[in-house]
Structures are given as structure tokens and as C-alpha cells.
């Protein structure tokens, strides 16, 4: 894709990030450690240069993220010198919450949605950036760049404000907050092209190598967590694979791939036609599940 196209997307995203810094009292940037977050972070660095990023990063740590993600997170935060807040729903963890015990929906509800809402409330944040893109999923295709949430963080698709030109309406009532998606108009391929052009560091899990995985139907599961059971007849195998999107290790499958560099990944994406959230088990629980999670306060 043309360089010019990426520069247009970049300029629009920087404009959005600056509008938030100008119009909100306490913004925060959700940092999920994945490729989209890495791009968002770079855009924030660019937006305020030569000044520092004027808001903290927030990571909602379910404690079930891949080990390599956490190492990468801490390394990046130290390197960039940004204020990183890590929040975990420790109460739910102590109560034994994990996907095999309570189901993926309830697990996500407690460790991601509830934890996020608590962290936003604790910090008194009135705007939270997320790296979601409209090309990821059907209900996201409908979401505004400035997505208004009520006092419980919930999205009402019928209350969405018209968003014209580059005029973003950041006005909120007390208790309400805004979720902001500067990467709305980017596609997965744009993100990788940008990472390539800008040499942005990403978690090594995106790159193919032999990994010890459980082969379960079409999914390859990395057994990092002790509670991930081997079903009858299953054993771990060494498979050449990589992550197409990053999440919690028990619920994010790897794909068979030999793409070991960013340009390999781009070639693979051009050839492969499977959308990236497919390997996230949580979105497929039922038709419209992402929309329902968003209504409940998920990103």
C-alpha cells in the first residue's frame, strides 16, 4: 500500500489524539501490548513531540496474558519513559476466576470489562483511548471515533452522535466518559505496513517459530496456564506457528505460519483471508457477542 495513504491515516490519528488532550481533563491510553497498541503509542509520541505524552498508559492485566507480553510491556514503558498503570481485578482472581472454571464470557466480564471500569473510575479518567479498528468486527464498523459511554461505561448504539468532518464533539455530562479510537480507519494490513515503515517494536509472539502447543480442532493453544486441560487424546506438539492477535494465553489461538518477519507477515496477510479475531474464542460465543460486550462496557 502506498506510503502516502499511511501518512494520511497517521495525520488523522494524531489530530484525534491531540483533540482529546486539549478537550478532556484526565485522558488515559489503554495499552494492551498488541500491535495496535504499539502503533497507538508511537502516534502519541509523535503527537506531543518534543513534549512528553501528557497522559498515563493503562494496562488491564488479567494475569493470563502471555509471559512475553508482560516482559515486552515493562521494557517498552521503561524505554519510552511513560507512566504505566497496571490494574487487575484481584478479588476475582482470588476467587478462582479463569475461563475453564467460570466460562469465557464470565471470565472476560470480570477480568477485562469489570477491571477496566474499576480502573477508569479509580483514576477519575474522563477519556480512554483504545486501539480498536472498524475493520475488526461488524459492530465496531458502526462505532464513532469518539464513543460516548454512560456512567457504567456502557455503549448505546442508538445514542451515537453524528461525527462530521474532523469536528469531534467531546462534551460529556458528569459521570459520563468517552472511549476514543484513533485507529478507527486503519485496517490490519495498514497497521503492519506502518509497523514495517516505522520499525515499531512488537511482541515476538507475532513472529513464527516452533512452539509447544495443544492442537485442538483448528486452534493451537499455548499451555502457559496450569489450568488449561489436555482433553482425552490430546498432547502437546511442537508446531511452527505465530499469534495473529494477542490476548490471554488460554483463549487466544496461534496460527500455523512460517512468517518470521514483519514483511513475511504482510505477505501472509495479503494471501490469507481469515479475519484476525477468528482465533479469539470469546467473540464467537454467539452472534453479536462483541456488540453485547461493548454495550456492557468492554472496548
Amino acid at each position: 500500500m502506498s506510503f502516502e495513504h499511511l501518512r494520511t491515516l497517521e495525520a488523522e490519528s494524531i489530530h484525534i489524539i491531540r483533540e482529546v488532550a486539549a478537550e478532556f481533563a484526565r485522558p488515559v491510553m489503554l495499552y494492551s501490548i498488541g500491535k495496535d497498541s504499539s502503533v497507538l503509542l508511537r502516534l502519541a509520541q509523535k503527537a506531543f513531540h518534543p513534549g512528553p505524552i501528557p497522559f498515563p498508559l493503562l494496562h488491564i492485566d488479567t494475569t493470563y496474558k502471555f509471559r512475553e507480553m508482560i516482559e515486552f510491556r515493562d521494557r517498552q514503558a521503561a524505554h519510552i519513559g511513560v507512566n504505566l498503570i497496571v490494574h487487575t481485578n484481584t478479588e476475582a482472581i482470588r476467587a478462582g476466576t479463569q475461563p475453564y472454571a467460570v466460562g469465557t464470557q464470565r471470565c472476560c466480564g470480570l477480568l477485562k470489562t469489570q477491571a477496566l471500569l474499576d480502573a477508569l473510575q479509580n483514576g477519575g479518567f474522563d477519556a480512554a483511548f483504545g486501539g480498536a479498528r472498524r475493520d475488526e468486527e461488524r459492530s465496531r464498523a458502526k462505532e464513532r471515533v469518539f464513543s460516548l459511554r454512560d456512567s457504567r461505561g456502557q455503549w448505546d448504539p442508538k445514542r451515537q452522535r453524528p461525527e462530521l468532518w474532523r469536528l469531534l464533539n467531546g462534551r460529556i455530562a458528569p459521570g459520563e466518559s468517552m472511549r476514543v479510537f484513533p485507529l478507527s480507519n486503519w485496517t490490519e494490513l495498514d497497521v503492519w505496513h506502518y509497523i514495517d515503515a516505522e520499525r515499531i517494536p512488537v511482541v515476538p509472539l507475532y513472529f513464527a517459530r516452533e512452539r509447544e502447543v495443544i492442537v485442538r480442532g483448528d486452534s493451537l493453544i499455548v499451555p502457559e496456564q496450569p489450568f488449561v486441560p489436555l482433553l482425552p487424546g490430546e498432547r502437546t506438539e511442537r508446531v511452527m506457528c505465530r499469534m495473529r492477535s494477542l490476548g490471554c494465553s488460554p483463549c487466544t489461538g496461534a496460527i500455523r505460519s512460517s512468517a518470521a518477519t514483519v514483511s513475511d507477515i504482510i505477505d501472509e496477510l495479503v494471501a490469507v483471508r481469515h479475519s484476525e479475531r477468528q482465533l479469539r474464542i470469546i467473540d464467537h460465543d454467539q452472534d453479536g457477542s462483541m456488540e453485547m460486550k461493548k454495550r456492557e462496557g468492554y472496548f
Partner: protein
Amino acid sequence: MSGLLRICTAGSVDDGKSTLIGRLLYESRGVYEDQLQSVKAASRNRTAGSIDFSLFTDGLRAEREQGITIDVAYRYFATAKRKFILADTPGHEQYTRNMATGASTADVAILLVDARHGVREQTRRHARIARLLGIGTFVVAVNKMDLVDFDESVFASIASELPDLLDGAHVQPIPLSALHGDNVIARSGRTPWYRGPALLPFLEETVAPELPALAPFRFPVQLVIRPDARFRGYAGQIVSGRIAVGDSVTIWPSGTKTRVAAIVTWEGNLPSASAPMSVTLALADDVDVSRGDTISAGPLHVGRRFSANVVWMDERPLQPGRPYVLKHSTQTVTAWSDEALSLNQIAIAKITAGRPLAFEPYSLNRSTGSFILIDPSSNFTAGAGMIVEPLADAQRSADRDLADRVAHAARAARSHVDAVDAVRAVLEETLA
């Protein structure tokens, strides 16, 4: 590579808009395999038969349940030639505001017309909005041609109807069947009488307007960047034109003149920059600049009153004299309208802003000529405005304006002597 093209679709309900877009996405591989699987499964739940292409774009449960499109859906696809962002906007009149949203950033509008019904009121309305919002290229997609036996005369009569409404725009009528794919990707054998291009090739070849880069330099200031005592820069996006280090610029609404000392980016300082880049400008003089000001090459209108085409998007009507929040560029002020408007109405209104704005007619510049009106009690984006022309400020506000202009003239001056001259000039001009 022809660059990025932004498209919006418009038309009446049931003209087959979502089906056409689903078809475009499907044929250009803009639909992913697992989305296709989930749509195939959903198609089986709803109706017997083949793939329901509209399910690719109708993303909300209420839409799938009711079989209509409620909200704008943004779709992204690319061919070997070009990248597209497509805003799929609803046909129901109650969602006309979303049509305006989609059209505000589009280069091309596809107007869907059902061949059996011809151009309906809703289509005319959408065409009018899209033209008003500055779209210069229209495809009149005469859909469901299979249901009129690909009759050339049906197509010709519809094709002749819309150009009058879209004066000055480039209009390309295309006979289609979105359901069967005729003239979507390639020319169809079932319309041998049609000599024009199929839809996708037409979109691939359309030239996106280069206007923003060619127009005069306009830079609304978003933020002042001041990391330490040594650096003070103004962050913003160049909405039009080009700027180079050393260029003379004016800061509005004060009218202060200065020069660009540096164009600062994360990659390093640049000798020049152009729309649509986001940059930070350092200026040669220690001047008063803050968020909401516009840095430009050449003059802008400065004033509190102007006429504008206003699209009303809120169920609560626009009330004359009621204060609204007006956002223009990066400036937010209180404003009043002299006109009453109800939901989905479009009319020319006279707008009075509480403080002077620096603006241009929308026909010259989409960025400096546009604004939104926000209801201060609900915070809903209630109106979209396109400035037509400045109006003389009303008598009751003349005193305050004069004070503003005197203050600006004094502040803009380089020395006390200059300030005295500048103030005298303003007073003489006003009292003459």
C-alpha cells in the same frame, strides 16, 4: 496507485444499498472468510437461499432483526489499484443525519435507485445533502435492473433525472444488479446497450479532489506544546495548502503577522509540509497564539455573524435565539440561530457567535467553512453547518466588536508607535 478514495452511499430504503456494498466487498475480497461463514450461517437462519450480502454491513443486532440499516457502517477494501473507505449510510429518513455524517468526508457518492420505482423523494434528499456537503462526483447506480428485464429506456429515464439536482457535479449513471453482480466488477453481457464503465473500475479510476493540498495554507491550532522554557510550538493538522520555513503567516482572529521559524515533527524538523500532515509550528516572534486560533497564509473572514446551510439532526428542534455550543475548527463558542429547524430539515440560517470566528465559505474550504452545533443540555451533535457568507454584525454587538478589533490591532503591532497607528486606522475605518 491512485491513492485513497472515500465513498459514501445514499438512497432510499430497500434500494439494495447494503447488498451492493456487500457485493463490492465480497468481490474485491474485502470480506474475510470467517465473516463469510458467520453470514452464511445467519442467512440460513433468516431466509432460505443464497448469501445475503447485506449482512456484511448491517452490524447491529437491531439492524439484522429488522432487516434495515440504522447507522453508518464504515468499510475498508482495496483493489490492486487503490484503497477505499466506504461509509454505508442508512436510507430511512429518520437517519438522514447519518447520511450527512458519511457525506461530510466523502469524495464520491453512490446514489442507489431502484429501477422499478425511479428516483424517490428520499434519494433526492440524500443527493441534495451530498451535493451540499461538497461531493463533486456522483454515481447514479440504477439497481435491480434484472427486475425490469435490463430495459434501456427505464435506465435512460432515471439517468436523465438526477443531473439537474446535482448541478456542477460529475454524474455517472450505471445500470446494475447488485444481487446478480451485473456491471459491479465487470461490464455485463445483459446490458449490451450500456457503453460506460462497471462500478468498481469507475471507482478505481476516479480522481480524488486534490483541493486540500492546492488551496491556501490553513492550520487550526489544537495545542500549545511547551515542554520547557526553550521551546514553544503550536500543534495542529494542516487542513489545506502548504507551508515552508520562513513563510509569512497570519494568526486569526487577531490578525497578527509573523513567520514560520520551524516545522517540528518526531522525525525531525522539516523544510516544508503540506495538507493533510499533522505537525508542530514554531513561530519567529513571541506572539499570542492559543488553541482555537488559525494560522494561515492570506486572509480569512473574521466576524461573529454569517449565513450557513444547516442540516438539523436532533429530535429536539433548533430554536431561534436559544444558545448552542458551536465548534468550528478547534474553536468552541456559544452561538444562536435566527431560524427554526426540525429534525432532518435543511435551510439557510443566520448564525451569531458569541466571539469572533475566523472562517471561509464552505465552497472554498471544507475545514474552515464547516461547524457543528451542540445542544448544551444533551451534548448531542444537533446541527451541521456549512458557511455561505459573512454577514454584517448586528448593531447591538458593534461596540464589543470594535473593542475586540482595537485590542487585536494593538496586540498585533510590533512597537508602541505601530500600535497607535494601527488603533487609529481601525477607529477611522469604523467611524468613517
